[in-house]
């Protein structure tokens, strides 16, 4: 087990190296000059050249890369071109809304989708099953922002139950935080509910055909015990895998959701940084996302062992 974890953690290094090189090159090769963006519309070419020298953008690409990497290895993520703060500070400020959104989304998605999938599998072929499957196709196909605006229109504007936009820190007012978290989380959760419900249904359906389910029935157990104790736990591994993969989609979804609901999170920060060619910020955010993704999938792999004693690392 320890062997496995160490191996997986070591494997993060090449992944991050590739991500770093890729991100760095992509940004440098795309047209657009951060110095020009910072200097504004009325700047002279001298002023732009000045800024460029100050930011180190006139060095050759590989020198820039070496400087950047060695700074990162020392824990220095650089200073944002645009926000005039260190990137570390910037991320620290923006991380809470995104983290809160991600956690709320996952909690909603799992608590709604898993029972939905189990019921659909158990009542395989019934009306309920068809409704769940229909919802899941719809959930996949409707874009996040459409769901967002629909929810805002119904619950914030027409009914007036919840605020339209904005964010209040959990430390400031828990109720205010919750009120503003509900709609964004539901918006983002829809696609995950669709994904996880579908996977749960397929996985439970497969398990229900297994011999040990027949054994459970032959023992005279009730349907509930058969379903929850015998079927669901055996179906857990594929469901967990999908949740792990879904984390990647969560990051993309957060960008849109945060823009729709005006949440000052990492997703919005990414958008702003990209629009202003703020290289250090973009690079760091992407690296951060990669680390989170790899670590979460490691945790998912480890959690398999909790559900299936046959899996040993």
């Amino acid at each position, binding site marked *: 087990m320890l*062997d496995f974890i*160490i*191996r997986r953690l070591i494997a993060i290094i090449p992944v991050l190296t590739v991500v770093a090189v890729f991100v760095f090159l992509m940004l440098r090769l795309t047209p657009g000059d951060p110095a020009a963006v910072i200097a504004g519309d009325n700047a002279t070419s001298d002023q732009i050249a000045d800024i460029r020298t100050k930011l180190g953008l006139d060095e050759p690409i590989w020198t820039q890369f070496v400087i950047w990497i060695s700074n990162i290895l020392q824990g220095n993520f650089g200073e944002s071109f645009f926000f005039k703060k260190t990137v570390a500070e910037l991320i620290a400020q923006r991380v809470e809304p995104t983290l809160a959104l991600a956690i709320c989304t996952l909690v909603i998605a799992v608590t709604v989708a898993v029972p939905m999938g189990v019921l659909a599998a158990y009542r395989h072929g019934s009306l309920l099953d068809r409704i769940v499957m229909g919802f899941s196709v719809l959930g996949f196909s409707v874009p996040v922002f459409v769901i967002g605006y629909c929810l805002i229109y119904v619950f914030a504007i027409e009914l007036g139950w919840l605020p339209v936009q904005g964010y209040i820190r959990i430390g400031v007012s828990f109720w205010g935080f919750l009120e503003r978290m509900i709609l964004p989380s539901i918006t983002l959760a829809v696609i995950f509910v669709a994904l996880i419900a579908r996977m749960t249904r397929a996985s439970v359906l497969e398990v229900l055909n*297994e*011999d*040990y389910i*027949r*054994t*459970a*029935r*032959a*023992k*005279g*157990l*009730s349907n509930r*015990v058969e379903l929850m*104790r*015998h079927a669901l*736990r*055996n179906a857990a591994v594929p469901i967990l895998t999908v949740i792990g993969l879904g984390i990647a989609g969560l990051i993309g979804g957060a960008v849109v959701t945060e823009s729709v609901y005006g949440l000052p999170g990492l997703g919005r920060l990414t958008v702003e940084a990209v629009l202003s060619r703020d290289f250090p910020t973009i690079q760091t955010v992407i690296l951060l996302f990669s680390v989170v993704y790899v670590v979460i999938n490691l945790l998912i792999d480890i959690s398999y062992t909790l*559900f*299936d*004693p*046959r899996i040993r690392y």
Partner: protein
Amino acid sequence: MPEAKRPVLEVRNLSVTLPTGADRVHAVEKVSFTVAPGEIVCLVGESGSGKSVIAFTIMGLLAKALKPSSGEILLEGENILAADESRLRELRCTRMSMIFQEPMTALNPVMTCGLQIDEVLATHTKLDAAQRKAKIIAILDRVKLPEPERIYASYPHQLSGGQRQRIMIAMALVLDPVLLIADEPTTALDVTTQAEILKLIAELQEGQGTGVLFITHDFGVVAEIAHRVAVLRWGELVEMGPTEKILSRPEHAYTKMLISSVPSIHPAHRGVRKDGPTVLRTEKLGKTYSGNAFFQKARVVKAAVDVDLDIRRGETLGIVGESGSGKSTVARCIARLIDPTDGKIFLGDTEIATMSAGKLRPHRRRVQIVFQDPYRSMNPRITVGDSIIEGPMNFGLKRDEAMARARKLMETVRLDPNSLDRYPHQFSGGQRQRICIARALAMEPELLIADEAVSALDVSVQKQVLELLDEIRVRLNLAVLFITHDLRVAAQICDYVAVMSKGHVVEYGSAEQVFGAPKDDYTKALFAAAPGRNWEFGKFATA
């Protein structure tokens, strides 16, 4: 009838309807029989005979598509066909229990064995945790599992197949039901394990006076365990009577045919060794699997060690052994489906054990395999004709020439050449296995490997395929390597036999010598465990 002799199970005129569109209307039609206390009744039949359907109907575990349409099932006088789901739930495991064919999959892999038995007690009794635990340990002891405490805490995958089946038996019998239904409980087990499990079931049921409905396709098992036998065909009960009578004086033509199809355990006399050229010779062939771990010591499994074999043209060499003995590993090494790690393989004069994939390709044609499961060894999306000609066309034959060859081969395996444009699912299991044989022969191989090629087939079909294989061997003067776990089959088809155990060949000689006077202790134990070994199944005229 005295009270003690009232049957525990009485099935009267039971019919079960198949869904519309099936090949017949009833899965089971007007079947009646009884099981008395302390009696073992065997339901025998080939696949599709409806024997499992009867078992599942009694337990109330039928698939939704199947509906009992008439009749009664009386469990100690109570008609359980009319019982609702909650009553059935009460009866399951308390009055009637069932054990299944596949101990590997019948237990929940993510729960400890102890807890799985505990569920039964927690559901059906008011015992507290400590009493339940004590009762479970006691039953684990009764089914002769070593170290009951350790077994209690083990997960199924940590136990062997035989041990898992003991867990199933413990689970079924922990509440002393009056009826035990055993659905092919030993079919998936090795022969030595099978003998132990059969003995255990007989002992336990005799001690408790349990009535047993034992479902099997194997007449060896019937001879071993049954008091009475019921023979089923296409859902109808064709004949029923005491074991001795059914096996030695069957009346119905179908029963006669079935019993005549059981291969004898005494080898057929095959004459003296012919002086053909050696087609295949292995020299100290070995295969070692080793896993590699980063920090831990690598795990090494020796699947085959120092295997020396040779087969001459026109001869059949059998490799017999239990699962994990390495018999299939050897076959796969010889066909180079896997790469051997030690030793040499001579195909004629060519050494192929270490040959590179590119150089090996022209020699691939010379060795062909027929696999065990005819349902999975054919690509379901291409026609059988295309399956057969694919190989020869890879080796340069033109399509129409290959097709002509395929037509001829279909005749050889006694199938209609005009059915080449059909798909595998349109054929029965036995027909598919014939097609697999034709596919192998289309390459005009020098060596034909049959890897458990008749194990998945019903006994009557098995007999035909065995006869076909032997006929082809004689006609084409082929060398055949026949891998099987079934001693009866080996006795009938092999000139020479190699007995394998734990990767080693423990005994090797002519079939007559190995079967007639086994020298090795393992071989002796293997033969002693063969079910029905003391019973010579008669050959009846079935006209």
